[in-house]
């Protein structure tokens, strides 16, 4: 088992356990922290896939900005105590079972799919994920969507202020 494989399994296990802990922990602050852990694991996967740019962006945007925003909101509302009303037991069971069924079926689909048999995602090699290569494409072919996304941000900011404003 090569080092790459070891890292892959470790990161996968970390992601899954952290994701489970997100929905199992009672304190929302803990959930946020576990989610940050998931994002770190996914960023590790990106690095493993030689997509450094996305790995960094993922850390900065998600783990950095978004989750901090979540933390701010939680603390703003003083929700760090366990105060969530418990759901109906049957509803929980139904949710877990249906989610499990969906997973089972989709996995079985994947196992049946012959088109992806023997296909491999290249690790450590390939340079498309490097900042230079992505930047060239982004500012040539995708420059218009890039600029439009800045407008999207602007409108999101305006929207957030309008909604969050006290009356």
């Amino acid at each position: 088992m090569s080092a790459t494989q070891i890292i892959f399994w470790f990161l996968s296990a970390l992601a899954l356990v952290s994701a489970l802990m997100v929905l199992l922990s009672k304190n929302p602050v803990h959930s946020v922290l576990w989610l940050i852990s998931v994002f770190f694991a996914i960023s590790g996967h990106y690095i493993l896939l030689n997509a450094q740019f996305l790995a960094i962006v993922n850390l900065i945007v998600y783990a950095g900005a978004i989750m901090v925003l979540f933390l701010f909101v939680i603390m703003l509302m003083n929700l760090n105590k366990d105060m969530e009303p418990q759901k109906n037991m049957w509803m929980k069971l139904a949710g877990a079972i249906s989610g499990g069924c969906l997973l089972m079926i989709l996995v079985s689909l994947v196992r049946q799919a012959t088109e992806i048999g023997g296909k491999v995602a290249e690790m450590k090699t390939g340079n498309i994920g490097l900042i230079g290569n992505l930047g060239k494409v982004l500012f040539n072919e995708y420059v218009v969507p890039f600029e439009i996304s800045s407008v999207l941000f602007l409108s999101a900011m305006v929207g957030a202020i309008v909604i969050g404003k006290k009356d």
Partner: protein
Amino acid sequence: MPIQYYIILSLALFCIGIVGVLVRRNVIIVFMCVELMLNAVNLLLVAFSKMHHGIAVVNDKATTVGTDAQLFVFFIMVVAAAEVSVGLAIIVMMYRNTHSVDVNFLNRLKN
């Protein structure tokens, strides 16, 4: 690594997100689970982009196949950031009006 592993990992994360949405009542946790699902999809997109690049690079050393997918992930993150800002603003608004973050208070769809 075989692509199936990535697919199954993504599916597992996605389904955990779904179960979270179904099971939890705290609207912030639900929102976080949605983010988790988005990330699962992002991971899958990146894995596929690397798979296609790996197939194409055998014939052409200088191929740029797969770049688009990674940029797509980039844009998803952009949209997700915008979405989170608006979504959290809505949650704050809701908390201010109902003094609760229970999604079951938001049952106006019934009427």
